């Protein structure tokens, strides 16, 4: 929750910046760092907390099921976003519609992959194709998001210096969003897609836990910074 004080300075609360999904990512990254430090067991008052089990048995399944729920939400808003509210004269509107379609396909294939991996659905022969679909559509979705951010930045540039404080944060928001999408594209291509096509050079299995944890931390820092900029652009 945000708090406004008398001298017109608005402070952001933790809950404004870190939503449920980001919190899961943060805890997962902390677990990865624990693995890097080779200290996965923490003992207190006779109980032992195993961070590896926490990550594998709780956080990863949770992410999988949340991805399925998110896909349901996208399917329900599909008609509205991709048909009803599309302005054919505006390129950004069309890009948004296509991006939504990619995000929906990516979410569903990701959810299906998770269900196959956790042996809820027994469709193992289709796992590879679903995994590829997930990564390719996710990359396309990120590329289109960058295009949307660029288009919004162009609009901001044309608006000039009206409400400059708010605009400054909006610029910041779009730049950070582009940074996050780029990072996501790079990690998807080099860590997840490369092994699928036989480029073992950057395969996740060959990357050290330190590199994986560092990439994850960079992604999270970017997401938090973007969330702060997004909130501030609305408040300024």
């Amino acid at each position, binding site marked *: 929750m945000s708090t406004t004080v008398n001298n017109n300075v608005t402070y952001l609360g933790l809950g404004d910046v870190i*939503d*449920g*999904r980001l919190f899961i990512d943060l805890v997962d990254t902390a677990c990865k760092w624990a693995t890097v430090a080779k200290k996965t067991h923490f*003992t207190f008052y*006779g*109980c*032992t*907390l*195993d*961070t590896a*089990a*926490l990550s594998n*048995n*709780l956080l990863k*399944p*949770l992410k999988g*099921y*949340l991805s399925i*729920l*998110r896909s*349901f*939400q996208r399917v*329900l*808003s599909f*008609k*509205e976003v991709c048909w009803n509210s599309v302005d054919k004269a505006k390129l950004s509107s069309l890009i948004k519609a296509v991006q939504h379609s990619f995000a929906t396909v990516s979410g569903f294939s990701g959810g299906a992959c998770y*269900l196959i991996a*956790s*042996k*809820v*659905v*027994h*469709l193992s022969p289709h796992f590879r194709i679903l995994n590829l679909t997930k990564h390719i559509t996710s990359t396309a979705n990120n590329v289109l998001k960058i295009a949307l951010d660029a288009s919004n930045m162009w609009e901001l540039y044309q608006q000039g210096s009206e409400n400059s404080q708010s605009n400054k944060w909006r610029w910041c928001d779009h730049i950070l969003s582009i940074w996050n999408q780029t990072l996501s594209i790079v990690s998807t291509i080099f860590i997840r897609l490369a092994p699928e096509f036989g480029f073992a050079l950057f395969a996740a299995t060959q990357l050290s836990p330190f590199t994986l944890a560092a990439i994850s931390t960079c992604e999270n820092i970017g997401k938090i910074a973007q969330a702060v900029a997004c909130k501030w652009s609305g408040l300024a």
Partner: protein
Amino acid sequence: MSASAIAPPLFSSSALQDFFNTEDSSSPQRALITIGTLSSLVHKCQSLFQMRWEDTFDFGKMGDAMSDLAGYFFLADVVDGSYKTYLATKEVIAHFNRTMVKEEARARVSFLAALTRAGKTFSDAVTFLKTIAKTSALTGLNMRPWKLAGNCSCAIYLMHSLYKGEESTPCATDERTPLDGATVIYLFQKDQKTHLDNLDKMLALSIVCISIFGSVCAFSGVSIPTSIAVCSRNVSFALSVGSAVCSVGSYFYGKQIENFEDQKSPNVSISGG
């Protein structure tokens, strides 16, 4: 009746989208529990009608996983509940300092509210711990006494909130200003929501009581006949299905009420709710 008096569909597209919203901290919990319970129900039906779908889709596994994982979101409830308990305790202390009789009565009410809120927070914390323990991330903790304590505090909270209740007919209307159709629908929806909330609490209380009964038997070393154990498990599952249905109904009625309140403020004074 005017055109505005036609009730909008309960499961509207926007309400369903909100139901599957994963960004809000409390929403995924409800969606996970509902889908998990329905999956478990499908699995039970499969077993009942001797259908073999496990070769393709294991509904039982998915239902159990979803229902168990929903416990993670109790962490948000614990944080929220702790803050509310702190505020309620502050209020008790503020009233307690004053010596007037009227203030003492208010302090008593605030104390009861703080106590039940603390009970609910404790119960949520135990549920969260249970989830962590189930995933074998937390070992070495004997959950039995904690479970019993959590269930007891949850039962006290539910009984208190049921006893306190909400007014089911929230109309305090002026006869000279007749209600329009939309307001009548609004009041009907509010009434339905209150009924479903109360029913949900009663079902939850029944589940908690069954659980307490099981824990007490386990502690006292009384061996329960297998038939009774199986029966109580089935009853508990049936109650949880009912609770999920009530929770979903209450959520969608709540969405309609929110939409109505956004569109226009009703010309009746609403008490309670």
